[in-house]
Each structure stands twice: as structure tokens, then as C-alpha cells.
């Protein structure tokens, strides 16, 4: 069946069976490989995408379920050649080692700051509790999200002034 989604702001369609998982739809039908397959059992969060702005595990969503909905993947974070503040944060704070969990971590971080612009460290740690980093680089991931939140706040203040 034909499935159409709003992918990172643009309409994308492809033919897929109803049993196709969203992560496979994104990777093999749409050819976007930034969304990773890690555990494939809804534990690790490597496959995180935003569904209408909320992070979900795309290995545990059927592509047909998101027909007509808005999906954001890691490819949708940077706009017009400019990194998203969460990407700047991961760069500045060295928020990655092997990088496998990074797309998911960044999407969760971006959604967290969107919903809660000034998260505490505790809120950040709870926010990423569905995403596993096997390099155990959590310290710098938390710092990266804090960096992005601070940058957002600075930008907002600049915008007001």
C-alpha cells in the first residue's frame, strides 16, 4: 500500500506492506539512514524519531500508523546549512564517542528542550532514560543538552532585545 508522510517538512511517499516497521520504511524505502537500528526490541532508542514532535521508537511503530503525520529524523535537525542548537551542543561538549546512539539522543534532547526550555539535570536524565549509550558517555550527553538549552535561552534573550 502507498504510505505518505510529512518527512522533515516535505511530503514523501513509498509503497510498503502493512507489516513494515517505520524504521525500515525510513531507511530502505526513503533511503534515509540517519535513523539507526540498534536493539530492534524497543529498548535502546537508536531508532528514535519525532512523531508530531514527540519522540518514539520507530522499531516499534508500523509505517502505516503514521500515514499523513509529521516525522522528524536527525536529517531534519539542521536547517539551511545551519546546525540545530542540539547539534551544536553535541559538537561543543563532545556528546558522542562512537555516534551510534547520537541521532536518537539528539532528537530526544531537541524535543525535551522544546517542551521544557530550562530542564534540570534530573529532568534531562529522565528524558534520555529510554535511550542507551553503550560508550556510556552520558555525562557529556547531559552537558550537550544543557549547552543547547543555554544557547536557546541566550538566543531568546537576544531576540527580545
Amino acid at each position, binding site marked *: 500500500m502507498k504510505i505518505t508522510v510529512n518527512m522533515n517538512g516535505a511530503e514523501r511517499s513509498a509503497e510498503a506492506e*502493512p507489516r513494515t516497521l517505520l524504521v525500515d520504511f525510513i531507511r530502505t524505502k526513503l533511503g534515509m539512514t540517519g535513523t539507526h537500528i540498534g536493539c*530492534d*526490541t*524497543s529498548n535502546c532508542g537508536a531508532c528514535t524519531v519525532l512523531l508530531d514532535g514527540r519522540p518514539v*521508537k520507530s522499531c*516499534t511503530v508500523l509505517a502505516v*500508523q503514521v500515514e499523513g503525520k509529521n516525522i522528524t529524523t536527525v536529517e531534519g535537525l539542521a536547517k539551511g546549512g545551519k546546525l540545530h542548537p542540539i547539534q551544536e551542543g553535541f559538537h561543543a561538549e563532545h556528546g558522542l564517542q562512537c555516534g551510534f546512539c547520537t541521532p536518537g539522543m539528539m532528537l*530526544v534532547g531537541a524535543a525535551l528542550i522544546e517542551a521544557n526550555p530550562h530542564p534540570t539535570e534530573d529532568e534531562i536524565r529522565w528524558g534520555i*532514560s*529510554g535511550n542507551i549509550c553503550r560508550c556510556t558517555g552520558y555525562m557529556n550527553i547531559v552537558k550537550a543538552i544543557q549547552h543547547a538549552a543555554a544557547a536557546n535561552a541566550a538566543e531568546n534573550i537576544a531576540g527580545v532585545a
Partner: protein
Amino acid sequence: MFPAAFDYIAPGALDEVLSLLSQHGDDAKVLAGGQSLIPLLKLRFASPVIVIDIGRVDGLEGIRQENGHVRIGARTRHRDVESATDLRGTLDVLLDAAPLISDPLIRNMGTVGGSICHADPAGDWGAVMLAVGAEFVVRSSGGERVLPAVGFFEGPFTTGLHADEVMTEIRIPVGAGRSGGTYLKLERKVGDFASVATAVHVVLGGDGRISSAGIGLCAVGAQSIKATAAEAALVGQTPSDAVIAEAARLAGAAAEPKADIRGSAEYKRDVARVFVQRGLHTAINRAQGATA
């Protein structure tokens, strides 16, 4: 991993869902958020002929208070219960349980009704619904039934829901009196299923005595367990350490745990006792602090 092939339909109206269910019966599975069903499909533990996605049916989401009930649409996401802070003081146990269900991403997709109908003995909502005396509204093309949570959970992944029925709403009575509750969960790591969890909900009368008490036990039996003897030991009593300790002892005795990688049966039974004791202290303190 990917599921075996199935037919898929996402009706826009409940009547169409009911008609399909009456036509396909056991060959069909209802898909709500999919956070339990999709893993089962991927592991091929479930291979339905047709998956009926209720994600496009209007009117199945949201939390409302009316006519002495809190009414939760069956497709309401765990995340939306977590953020329903106006339930604080009325149904503390729901607000305490929601953020302990799996992880934030699963809570964004998973639904209350889906979890209840899935009836995992380690599912958190079952114990909560037993504690608060919930009723489940279920519909088929033949009409509507209202099933009490007590008796609904018949065994592992087995409920009183018929193959042609779909849950549409959870109704929780909120009567007069000051109430308090809490949910305590032991898990090996964040996001894990419970090793043991307990749900407690108490209502105090104007005289300060306990007018009703609900205690639900999670992951210590073949299904969610209502600790009825412990509840009976509380009703009519003035709260005290001794009353609470005796109720907790009875709740521990009502647990039917099995030893597994999460602990021995003896250990789990005692955790249930201790958590009910702690939970009752918290619940009663909250109720005593609440205004009627």
C-alpha cells in the same frame, strides 16, 4: 525482526471497528499504540490475519471529570496521564504510576486501554485500576458492557474482553471524602518491567477513619491481584502504624509470586508487604493533608 504479513485497516469510525471485529473475531487484533502488540508481532508470538488500527477513531482519547467519575478514553497515552496534574489530590496513584511505565518514548505511544487489555501480569495499570475500583466500558456491535476491574484480569494476557469487543473508556469513581494514594515500583533498571509494584488508594471519612481502601499488586501473580483481605482490614479503622502493618502483612500474604531472575518468591512477597506498608503511610498522609 519484522511481523508476519497481515491485512491492515484503520477505520475512521468506531462502528466500523465493531463491525470488523464481529466479522473477524479471534483472527483480528486491535492496534492502539502498539507498544505491546508490535513486539508480539515481531517475535511472531501473535500472527493475526487482520490488524484493526483504532488510531484514527475520534473520541477515544482524553481525561474528563464528570458525574463523580474520572473518565479516561481508552486510547489516552500514558504520557497524557503523566501530565494530567489536575488529578493530584484525587487520584495520586495514577500520577505516580504513569511516569514509572517503561520509558518516555514508549509512554508517548502506549495507551492506557491497550495496556489494560494486553493484561501483562507485570503491567502497571492493572494493579492501579484494581486499587481505584475502576470500571471498563467495552463495546461490540451488540452493545455496551461495563466490566469492573475486579474479575477482569483472568490470567496472564487473559481478560474478560470478548473477541468482538473493544475497550472505549476507563471510569474511575471519585466520591466524597479526602483521598490519597501512591504507586511504588521496584525495577532492576529504569524502564524495566516491575520486579514488584504496589498501588494504594485510600479515602478518609469526615471522622478521620478509613472509609475505603484499594490495594493492587503488580508482577506477583498470574494476573494483577486485588488484596481484598488487606483492604477489609483497613475499612472503618482509624489510621495507625499497627493497622497499616497488619494490612501490609495481609497484602503480602495475598501475593502469589514466582521465583525468577528478578528475585525469589519470598523476597518478592516481602517487597510487596513493605511497599504496601510504605504506600499506605504516604497515601494516608496525603489524604490527611487534602481538603475534602
